[in-house]
């Protein structure tokens, strides 16, 4: 089970005070689906406004990035730049 953490309060409307969950997902798509199942609405929030850092590598707008059972997954705001 991958450990999913949220450092910001961006997910609070969906997760309340929960900031860490264990999720069984093999890629970002499965992760989003499972997050949305547990916290309705969170899937869309993650998909539209957030990036997913998997083992320290920031991934944005991608379903296919693999997640390992022992991966560290962090939900963070999406990043752009100048």
């Amino acid at each position, binding site marked *: 089970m991958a450990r999913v*953490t*949220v*450092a*910001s*309060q*961006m997910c*609070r409307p969906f997760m309340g005070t929960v900031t860490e969950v264990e999720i069984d997902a093999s890629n970002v798509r499965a992760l989003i689906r499972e997050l949305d199942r547990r916290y309705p609405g969170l899937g869309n929030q993650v998909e*539209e*406004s957030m990036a997913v*850092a998997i*083992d*320290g*590598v*920031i*991934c*944005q*707008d*991608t379903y296919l*990035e693999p997640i390992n059972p022992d991966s*560290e997954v*962090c*939900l*963070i*705001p*999406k*990043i*752009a*730049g*100048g």
Partner: protein
Amino acid sequence: MNYLGKDVELKVVGTRPIRPDGVEKVIGRAAFGADFRVAGMIHGKVLRSPHAHARIKSIDTSKAEALKGVRAVITANDLPNIPSEEAFVGEGPANFRDMSLNTIARDKVLYDGHAVAAVAATSPSIAEEALRLIDVEYEVLPNVIDVEEAMKPDAPILHDDLFTQGVDPKPTKASNIAKRMEFKLGDSASAFSKADVIVERKYKTAPVHQAYIEPHACVVSYGADGQAQIWCSSQGQFMVRAYCAKLLGMDIADIRVFPLEIGGGFGGKTLVYLEPLALALSRKSGKPVKMTMSREEVFRGSGPTSGGAINVKIGATKNGRIVAAECEVMLQAGAFPGSPIGPALMTPFAMYDLSDVTIWGYDVVSNRPKVAAYRAPGAPVSTFATESAVDELAKQLDMDPLELRLINAAKDGTKAVYGPTLKDIGFVETLEAAKSSSHWNSPLGDAAPGKRRGRGMASGFWFNIGGESSGATYVNEDGTITVVSGNPDIGGSRASMGMMAAEVLGMDVKDVRTVVGDTTSVGFSFLTGGSRVTFATGMAVTQSAEMVRDELCKRAALLWEIPAEAVEWKDGKAYPAGENAGKFDPLTIADIAGKSARTGGPITGKASINAQGAGPGYATHICDLEVDEETGHTTVLRYTAIQDVGKAIHPSYVEGQLQGGAVQGIGWALNEEYVYTKDGRLDNAGFLDYRIPVASDLPMIETILVEVPNPRHPFGVKGVGEPPIVPPMAAVANAMENATGVRMSSLPMSPPRVRAALDASEG
């Protein structure tokens, strides 16, 4: 595949060839935004608000329309009224309704310079005359310019429907605070009890403009069939296409955008300003319309970056371990929500291995132009504060500031305050490089009488991004190569694209031509920004060149009638792989290209990807300066920029990014600011009064490129454009403190401010 191993011999990557677009640019032939013209075009101009905040009661365009030579006059009513819709654009989350209202005001003007109407006429002077004939009746409203003023409960409210997000309970009263955001690691409040020393201070930075030398410009032709062509300079031809389609209610397929050369952007050209207006004018007049901004319009009407107010508190033990940190960032968004508050909070402590941190902030609207991205958006503002505070901590602990940073430095395995565990980072390497640099080890030298000298250093972080990118490699009939990139080349990326393709194909880079494609000649690419092009588009180009290389081997195999696996590619030629493959003379690309019709047709590689894993960038800068006690004027004497760049494809252009970013930061530190009158009008909308650094202000900018390769890129590239603007403000402020004993906590450290601070310190 990747080319990272020690046994991989790189022949092109890492060298310094002349850029493919260079000659055109030194002979004055390269076509930038305002250089382009089409037959029959007319000229558009924008009427801008003279008020910081006013309700538009009426607009009468009849006199302007009656003027001889005027072909079209538009107001917001000529564009669709777009409903509120959140989207991720430019430097962060935004809203297409706001983008539309920023392009042309509908009911209210929200800043001095806000577009209100536009005219197209047969000459620029007639268009200007027509602007004077438009009657706009305003009801002037109270305005608010300063970020902290805008946050006060009794401040004039810009948007009646703006309620602060991210607070509990959900507010019922409209506010200028669009959003509150917070990141938390551990428990900072109780961790301060472990600290022997605590520094706490408030900082302020002024909003600054990207100040690219080329003003915004475009030519737009809207045809009777509803199809439009746009020629413009921007940071993304696909960005212009998407935004124009959205703002005009057009189909994306009906717009074709041709990227012209871009005369600097730094984030400021990641949005549209003129293009939607030119489209509406062209549609209304039936003529191609050219529009260019004056410099004054660039300052008043296009996005600067956010200024901010920052409160920092940091505590450390006697031996220099930082045990707790807190930071509050109030960031200006300009007239519409969308300051880079997220990155402003995520970056300033990313250099350090900390266990108890809380950082929170606010996205705040006020009566200023809507901010646009500017190099590492958000990070320079908050990092100025935290890196100044770290310096102050070093002083109180009587420690070398570089040693203090080394003790606390983030390494692989450090958990960042915003969540992830960092990996493949080269921050310590930048500190070690600083420590052993000639600059750090040279004496500061004695100040002349009446002057004071000091040295300071600071560090900074930027994530870098990847994203959607397309690249193509074409083998021409004669065996030469054309590479097409989906990204406008803003600082030499055509050179790096061509070099990566040449490396893969084993060719001389001179035989590879790289061009930037229009929106129909290459696959979609996200804009040029976020330090992503050499990383992400470079990855796409590399893959497309690999496809070509593999196909060339296949074609050679066909010609030799041997299996494809029995062909190997070396130094631009196909060879039989070993004795068993048979004996054949090597085939050049030209040989294979000459037979391509017979072996299956044109040889082409195309890659469209969504690149992930842009390696994070860390920078450490050292600054020596001298302050004139009498005038408060500061001279930068020596400056060194050190950065982990992953791998420098073309080291000269990488150094150029470091030098340019550092100097923009020096300008931010010492001179640049928006000055407003009491009634909210911008008072320094020109290069005479908004003074960016000039050649005589500066020394040579020394650079040290640290290369900790990014394993996610075939050549190890990390983004390089943004990290260099993060450390300079604190590096200069820390040197200033070292020189004068005075901690300057407000930017810019302009001569009058320095003079006043020296006076205050002398009591």
